[in-house]
């Protein structure tokens, strides 16, 4: 507990992670303050999803430290881990909806277990959440009856259910049309403005990254190659960074 210095919402320090002989993360450092949005860009297969899973403790780093509001994630016991996880919303790349439950039950799942709400209040809350992502009509549908983009949005509603302080998005707009992508971007901005959430957004979508993120970070060869605002990265002397941005940003 150090009250003097403002605590980062998420702090990742020299994290290494390998799968067998494959070194995926090789000393990643990053830091997100409360109320800040960080976008992580990088080529496919560089370990962006792995990094997010390490942050929420779904996988364990080989070495290095990951702190949420100053609390170490790795090695904390189940109870502490679950307290931390209740403060974090995770939007999966694959949406990962529970396919034996309706859309409504999916969003109600965390509420049922962690929020002391009456059945009626819970229903209302689920409806609000689904309305906030424009999915209120799909309430009674099963996940395999809705489109990929709709699944993403339901996954987002589920991640927002417990009103988390920290949001981790794994490709929230990949596979969505530009209009829906922009809507999701608006939603993220709104959360940031109104609730001061800290967000980490993993994305290939440079436009969305530019729209919502205070800072961008480029992941390459298992490290953060460069961080800064969109302009910083675009004007940087690093050939890879400017190439990455300009190739994705045709304008």
């Amino acid at each position: 507990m150090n009250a003097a210095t403002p605590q980062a919402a998420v702090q990742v320090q020299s994290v290494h992670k390998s799968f067998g002989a494959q070194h995926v993360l090789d000393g990643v450092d990053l830091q997100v303050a409360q109320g800040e949005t960080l976008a992580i860009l990088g080529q496919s297969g560089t370990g962006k999803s792995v990094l997010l899973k390490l942050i929420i403790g779904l996988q364990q780093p080989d070495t290095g430290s990951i702190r949420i509001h100053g609390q170490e994630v790795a090695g904390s016991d189940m109870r502490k881990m679950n307290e931390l996880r209740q403060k974090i919303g995770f939007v999966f790349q694959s949406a990962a909806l529970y396919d034996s439950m309706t859309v409504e039950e999916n969003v109600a799942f965390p509420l049922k277990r962690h929020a002391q709400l009456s059945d009626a209040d819970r229903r209302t809350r689920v409806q609000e959440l689904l309305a906030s992502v424009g999915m209120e009509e799909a309430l009674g549908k099963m996940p395999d009856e809705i489109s990929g983009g709709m699944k993403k949005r339901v996954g987002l509603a589920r991640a927002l259910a417990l009103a988390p302080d920290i949001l981790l998005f794994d490709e929230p707009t990949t596979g969505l049309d530009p209009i829906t992508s922009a809507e999701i971007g608006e939603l993220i901005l709104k959360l940031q403005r109104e609730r001061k959430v800290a967000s980490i957004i993993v994305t290939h979508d440079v436009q969305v990254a530019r729209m919502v993120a205070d800072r961008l970070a480029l992941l390459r060869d298992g490290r953060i190659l460069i961080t800064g605002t969109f302009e910083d990265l675009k004007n940087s002397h690093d050939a890879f960074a400017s190439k990455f941005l300009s190739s994705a940003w045709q304008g």
Partner: protein
Amino acid sequence: MASSRLLCLCPASWSTPILVRFFEWFGDFGRFCGRLARTGFAPPYEREEFVHQLSEVGARSLLLVGLAGAATGVVFSLEARDSLLRFGAKPLLPTIIVLSILKESGPIITGLIVSGRVGASIGAELAAMKVTEQLDAIEASAVDLYKYLVATRVLACVLMLPLLTVAADFCGVVMGWVATTLTDPIPLRLFVNSGFARVGFNDLLPATLKTAVFGLIIGLVACFEGMRARGGTAGVERAAASSVVYASIFIILADVVLVRIILVFFP
């Protein structure tokens, strides 16, 4: 080189010797059980999921178990009748049918049928959830997988197995009577009275209750195999198959031990 080749009997992994994999399996399984014991049964309880699993296990297997029990009854009646006639001991027929069903065939057949039906479906269900990141999503929602998925399924299997065994026993005895009465008409009342005349507490209860252990094996093995699945659709298929294979083998081995123990404590 040649010797390492010889050790690798299992095509699933040519690189690790089978003996090592065998011990690894038990190590992982032990850790899995330890984890379940530590956090799986603490409150708050997942009542809704538990009740759902009870009805799933029951509904999935009741018909199959009843059919298998019935078939066993018929077979016993036919086989035993033939043998007993040779010794002139035909009046013993009801007793033989009832005893052999209650003491051994009912329990073991129920265990094996349920391990095929429920073991495969739990294994495949959890494996599919694993490879589609649904297990990760549950954990990310700060819900303990062991409490929500494993404890509910294991307990449901433990409770349902003895009940399903009673159903198998019932169908077996009734069909044993039907098959008997077709050749040598005998009233059901008489069949039951003489069949159960020498059947005591020690024959019935331990044999039925031992199936709770079979249920424990099915639930644990299927959940374990499902949760460690990897590799897409093929992984789901492997998890379902190995759930059934391992559960069946362990049930048969456990039966040997249990029968021995029951003979000691309930002579």
